[in-house]
């Protein structure tokens, strides 16, 4: 990246850079700590580029506006934190079943409820998967550095456009608010995906055409007339009572993610090849884990880190491999045990799984991980 721009940016600022790089031209939001900077900066940057910033009356309306804008052809974004993410859940489910591409940033803070607005947390890992009711596809990305917030925000837009589904970016307050030098990629340097548009005659257009796993999406206003609803629907979008179509509708929105896991999955492995002890974690906690792995290796202890950048869909394959290989897995997380349940499910008894948990608004220190591993090995 010889001509790229180096900048010292805050995580939330990098998120804005990523969104704009991906072509985001609409933001519907509502102030909430610790995500507010994203809205504030986009209120300046979007109008400068011909985009639109709207502050809505609450978080429910924010995602509602984003869904409307996305259906009108925009690349739409909202940003929030815990309580706001809770309020967005109904619209999130709507975006899943209506197959509306959009991106939701959740800068995680302590919860439940108002919780600890200015402290870091990873307490929305499960909310990102199960927050909205009904079976639905969940795609959630977990960057761990300011640079990654930029690149993963771009990837979030790409995945949402490609699979016509809402994509969540989960990062904790620590990386949301810390500053690191990052490189702003040049145009063309990162792939930017735009949703497929219909090529058929306007009168033949079916927004949920069964011949596709992901049907092309026509923007409102271009002459394609179609129906959008949160009810189970058939290919033309109109609601149905036909049980066969309802089943197919529910299964297809899951299938489009399940059948593309390899495209969506992204992991970083640190010294995992010969590891005897595994660590599984995301976000700021993964930074402590990386430090711990390096420190343990210096002492001859073969620790390795598996760090998913896509937490949903869960990296079953990579976790299974690690569980079959190591003596035990440590899952540090800033909650009282959310990811650990998934690791145990996938490991299915292949090895012991130990948690390190913190919900006091402080980060997990590398020594916590090092001490546990030394004690347990």
């Amino acid at each position, binding site marked *: 990246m010889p001509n790229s721009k180096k900048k010292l940016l805050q995580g939330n600022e990098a998120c804005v850079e990523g969104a704009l790089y991906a072509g985001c031209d609409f933001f519907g939001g509502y*102030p909430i700590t610790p995500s507010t900077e994203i809205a504030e900066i986009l209120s300046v940057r979007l109008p400068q580029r011909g985009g639109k910033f709207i*502050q809505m009356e609450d978080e429910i309306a924010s995602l509602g506006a984003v869904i409307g804008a996305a259906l009108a052809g925009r690349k739409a974004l909202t940003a929030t934190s815990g309580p706001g993410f809770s*309020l967005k859940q109904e619209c999130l489910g709507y975006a899943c079943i209506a197959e509306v591409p959009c991106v939701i940033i959740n800068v995680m803070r302590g919860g439940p409820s108002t919780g600890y607005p200015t402290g870091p947390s990873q307490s929305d890992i499960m909310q990102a998967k199960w927050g909205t009711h009904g079976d639905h596809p969940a795609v959630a990305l977990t960057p761990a550095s300011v640079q990654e917030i930029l690149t993963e925000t771009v990837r979030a837009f790409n995945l949402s456009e490609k699979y016509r589904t809402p994509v969540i970016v989960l990062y904790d307050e620590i990386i949301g608010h810390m500053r690191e030098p990052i490189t702003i990629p040049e145009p063309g340097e990162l792939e930017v995906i735009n949703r497929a548009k219909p090529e058929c005659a306007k009168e033949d257009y079916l927004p949920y055409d069964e011949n596709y796993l992901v049907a092309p999406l026509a923007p409102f206003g271009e002459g394609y007339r179609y129906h959008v609803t949160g009810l189970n629907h058939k290919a033309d979008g109109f609601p149905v009572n036909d049980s066969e179509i309802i089943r197919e509708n529910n299964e297809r929105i899951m299938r489009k993610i399940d059948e593309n896991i390899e495209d969506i999955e992204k992991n970083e492995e640190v010294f995992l090849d010969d590891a005897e002890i595994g660590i599984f974690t995301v976000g700021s906690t993964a930074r402590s884990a990386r430090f711990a792995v390096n420190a343990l290796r210096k002492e001859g202890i073969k620790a390795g880190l598996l760090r998913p950048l896509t937490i949903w869909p869960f990296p079953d394959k990579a976790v299974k491999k690690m569980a079959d290989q190591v003596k035990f897995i440590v899952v540090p997380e800033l909650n009282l045990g959310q990811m650990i349940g998934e690791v145990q499910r996938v490991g299915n008894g292949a090895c012991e799984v130990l948690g390190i948990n913190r919900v006091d608004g402080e980060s997990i220190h590398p020594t916590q991980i090092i001490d546990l591993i030394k004690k347990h090995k």
Partner: protein
Amino acid sequence: MATLKDFAKKEELFTGGHRLCSGCGIPPIVRLVLRNYETPVVAANATGCLEVATTIYPYSAWRIPWIHSAFENTAATISGVETAYRALKKRGKIPGGDKDIKFIAFGGDGGTYDIGLQSLSGALERGHNFLYLCYDNGAYMNTGIQRSSATPFGCNTTTSPAGTVIKGKLEKRKDLTRIVVAHNVPYAAQASPHNWSDLAKKTQKAINTKGPTFLNVISPCPLGWYTKPEDSNKHARLAVESCYWPLYEVEDGVLRVTYKPKKKVSMEEWLKPQGRFKHIFKPGAEGLLEEIQSQVDEYWEKLLEFDGKPVY
């Protein structure tokens, strides 16, 4: 009507030691309002400056039972408290049950005009016996000055930034008091902390009227208005003297303007010392001040037309 001396002798229900900013309009409003209660009072508080800065562990500025729920639901929470009280009282389960207990809900403009509007509307319609007090400082000050639907037209905030093309907030403020009045509540009023006797009179009416009542009180915010803390009272006064914030009440459907300035102050005089409006006095914003002035004039003239008349 009590004198200021009488008020000074009354027990302080909202004490010092809280961490609201110097010059904040909220504490004088809350102190004065609570001093008007002759009975025990229970408060609910929406998320916001008042809630955050008065209850930092291990301290509390409140000498009354107080509950914080979330951002959007303080009116719903007080609805539950008040209903439970009525039910328990009916069954004779309140100790000293003949004594009345009153209920008050506090919310800022973000928690009232925007996210809390549905909850407020529901509580007003159901007719709970409580007073809702909105302290309106014209933006989300607690999260760092983002625009709300109470933010004045033309105002600079962090999400309605004034730049070379867009000159701050382009939308007129929501007329919440009128929305509340449209619920046919028995009493609703606008007040200002600088006019303590007007605020006290309105508070007493609101407290002693059965059913849902509402006070919308302007609350200067030195941090968000970019004004000097020592000038807060002056800015509250100028908001009223300029007729930007008319003092009026609607009692049993009849509107009454409770204060008419002898000589209306220009909006320029009120806005000029406020940093949030500095862009309208710079080149490139021609016509904006005139637009603001004409909006305020138009509203005031309309209000005067209704003075002394029924509005529903």
